[in-house]
């Protein structure tokens, strides 16, 4: 197990190198830089000022030199300073993480709490009214884009009923309700269908029929056997969602003024704040490698037939 984890962590190095180089190159291909964005709409400034700013930020150097300089900084624990705020990139990035982590955790918990029971219910009540009703809910939930759900929730909970704030007031639970619900509705709609399909498939297997024939209660079969077998699918889905949520949900963060890394990333891209974008890229690479690693370990624990590092034939 330790050897496997070590190997996976070592894989992070080429992943990080590749992804940071690609993102660095792609930002240069975007056609403008921080200085262009800074002076673009604000007013006329002389070319000397523009050139001086570029030289100050090191943007006048060749691309590879810039990348090498950034990489050297990273290896020595220095992610640089933001071109925009002039503040330490690492500290700025870390200051945004609590909000993203809280939103991720709450959304995942809400999704699990909503989608698993409803998915099971739909499977158990297969082709009956409850199933049809939940399938319609799932269909609608999947069809609505996140920003639209956010606006609907705002209209109901904030403008009409005045129960919750539109804009977050810090990283508080009250402020987290609407963004969490927005994310959970879309994810629950998707997962409910998956849970329903997985549970239904299990329910149709011979061992369930056998258990029923032997007089084992349906609920016992469901909780002890069916759910356990369905967990693999659910864990895979959750792992993917956690990875994506930890990267921040820029639209939701922007709508609810939730001060997380997603919004920071989009703002940084808009302003071509390369050091901040690179920090985000490094974060995302680490997240996906770590989440996939934990998921693989969970697979092994849930089903010992799956051996770590070996694909099933």
């Amino acid at each position, binding site marked *: 197990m330790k050897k496997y984890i070590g190997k996976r962590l070592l894989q992070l190095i080429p992943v990080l190198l590749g992804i940071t180089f690609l993102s660095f190159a792609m930002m240069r291909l975007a*056609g403008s830089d921080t200085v262009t964005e800074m002076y673009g709409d604000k007013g006329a400034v002389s070319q000397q000022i523009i050139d001086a700013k570029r030289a100050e930020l090191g943007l006048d150097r060749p691309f590879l030199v810039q990348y090498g300089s950034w990489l050297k900084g990273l290896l020595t624990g220095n992610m640089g300073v933001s071109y925009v705020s002039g503040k330490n990139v690492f500290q700025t990035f870390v200051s945004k993480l609590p909000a993203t982590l809280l939103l991720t955790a709450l959304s995942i918990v809400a999704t699990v709490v909503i989608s698993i029971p409803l998915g099971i219910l739909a499977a158990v009540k297969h082709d009956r009214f409850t199933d049809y009703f939940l399938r319609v809910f799932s269909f609608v939930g999947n069809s609505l884009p996140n*920003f639209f759900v956010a606006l609907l929730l705002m209209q109901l909970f904030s403008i009409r009923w005045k129960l919750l704030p539109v804009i977050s007031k810090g990283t508080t639970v009250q402020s987290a309700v609407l963004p969490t619900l927005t994310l959970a509705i879309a994810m629950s709609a998707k997962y409910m269908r998956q849970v329903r399909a997985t549970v239904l498939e299990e329910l149709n297997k011979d061992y369930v029929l056998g258990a029923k024939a032997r007089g084992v209660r349906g609920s016992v079969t469901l909780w002890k056997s069916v759910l356990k077998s369905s967990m693999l699918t659910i864990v895979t889905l959750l792992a993917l969602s956690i990875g994506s949520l930890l990267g921040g949900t820029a639209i939701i963060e922007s709508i609810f003024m939730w001060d997380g890394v997603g919004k920071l990333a989009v*703002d940084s891209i808009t302003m071509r704040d390369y050091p901040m974008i690179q920090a985000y890229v490094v974060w995302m690479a680490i997240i996906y490698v770590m989440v996939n690693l934990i998921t693989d370990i969970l697979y092994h*624990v849930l089903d010992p037939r799956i051996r770590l590092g070996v694909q099933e034939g």
Partner: protein
Amino acid sequence: MKKTIAFLLTACLLLLMLAGCGSGKSGTETTTQSGSTAQTAAKKTMVIGDTTFNSENWEETVDPHRTYNGWASIRYGVGETLVHYTDTMELEPWLATDWTNDGNCTWTVTLREGVKFSSGRMMDGAAVKQCLEHLLENHDRAPGDTKIVDVQADGQVLTITTSEPNPALMNYLGDPYGCIIDVDASDFDNGIVAGTGPYVVKELVTDDHLTLVPNTYYWDGTPKLDELTIRTLSNGDTLSAALQAGDIDAAYGMAYEAYPNFENGGYQFSAIQTSRAFFGSMNMTSPVIQDAAVRKAIAMGINKEGFVKTLLDGHGVPANGAFPDGFSTFGGEHVKTETYDPEGAKAILEEAGWVDSDGDGIREKDGVKLTIRWLTYPSRQELPLLAESAQASLKEIGMDVDINCTANRREFLADMDSWDIYASALVTAPSGDPQYFFTTSCVPGMSYNFGAYDNPEVTALIEELSKEFDIAKRGEIAVKLQQMILDDNAYVFCSFLQMNMISGENVKNYTAHACDYYQVTAELDIE
């Protein structure tokens, strides 16, 4: 057992995520219950939602000596400048009571007596000298704009020397970067400065909020609010919903389409015409644009009234020249420009040999279709609409407009063969002085002269303007210059932005100003 391990691993994953949340400090200021209930209830607080106070807009702090942060400093009542702009953008005293020039490079500025910074330090010549020197050392545009090479202080009198005659010096010192701050008491690392304005920073979280409390040393009245919060809202829908839900009391930067939500009572609008012009710059190197008849026809073929009335729903003002009507002594009412006349435009094109020989509705000459490549960008909501409006109205006179609306317009601008008209938005007189626009946009080689416009007579007159100290004469030259560039049809000025600020009915004195600077004053109040 294994199930338990699986559960524990999953729980660990969630707990790890939650662990970082413990330090998440609320950005909301809670009202402490110290003192009597009556006192707590009487505390006047107000929240303004603003779409521009953010890093995206280079306003991440209130430090006026950093890029465009001065806008936040002056807008939210932290900083004040030596001079103030009137509603018609003329200069009037503020922290300076008087200023004179020797007709060359030396200015004598008398400072107002009895003004203190929020730090408690007296605002005297030495403090202002220190501030201006810090500005020149740290700000990117100030040294070039002001051309200041020396500042001397004697009591309340400053003697400023410029490297060359700079008649617009005091106008530039009215720019937000000219906010006078106490350098010794300012925290430049965190962008929090001690100014002379009615409010002082209590808390600043970039891209989230700015909390202000009254400056107890304020010299010009008593600030009415006990606490004022500026909330950064980058999403227009959120701004609208927050105002409707009562999360904020006033809003700056509302999108036009949200206005109907606030037009049926309960809210008030403060509207003012600004000098932010939406205009097209002709690419004078483009063969089709070099044809004077085509330029004239474009100027006559764009329906400015229709654009403002229909597409902007009346939230704008059609433009004559580079400056709005009534603007100082050189407003648009003093110049003559082409009026919307599609029939006249058709006749001009016919006369110049542009005819629709194949009956497809688009004119040709020497086998070349009359196609205009219209370059613009989407970050100003009016610009894509202007492009569509021009496309529709110019089609009526037989011109095909090919729109390229891109955030990457700089790349296209660099390639002069890729566009014919560049439509952009620019505050033509941010400091109330006309020279800025002409110098930056009409002199060959300057950064905003995108279309390579080059008229030696215009260039010579701009040079004359740069040396003229007499305000009345500067106005006359500015009118003459506008007329010359309009006669050349080098620019088509389409409209000016009408700025609207919306607030609840209980908000008092939340008033828009032509220069877009003075949003928060000591008189701002809420009932």
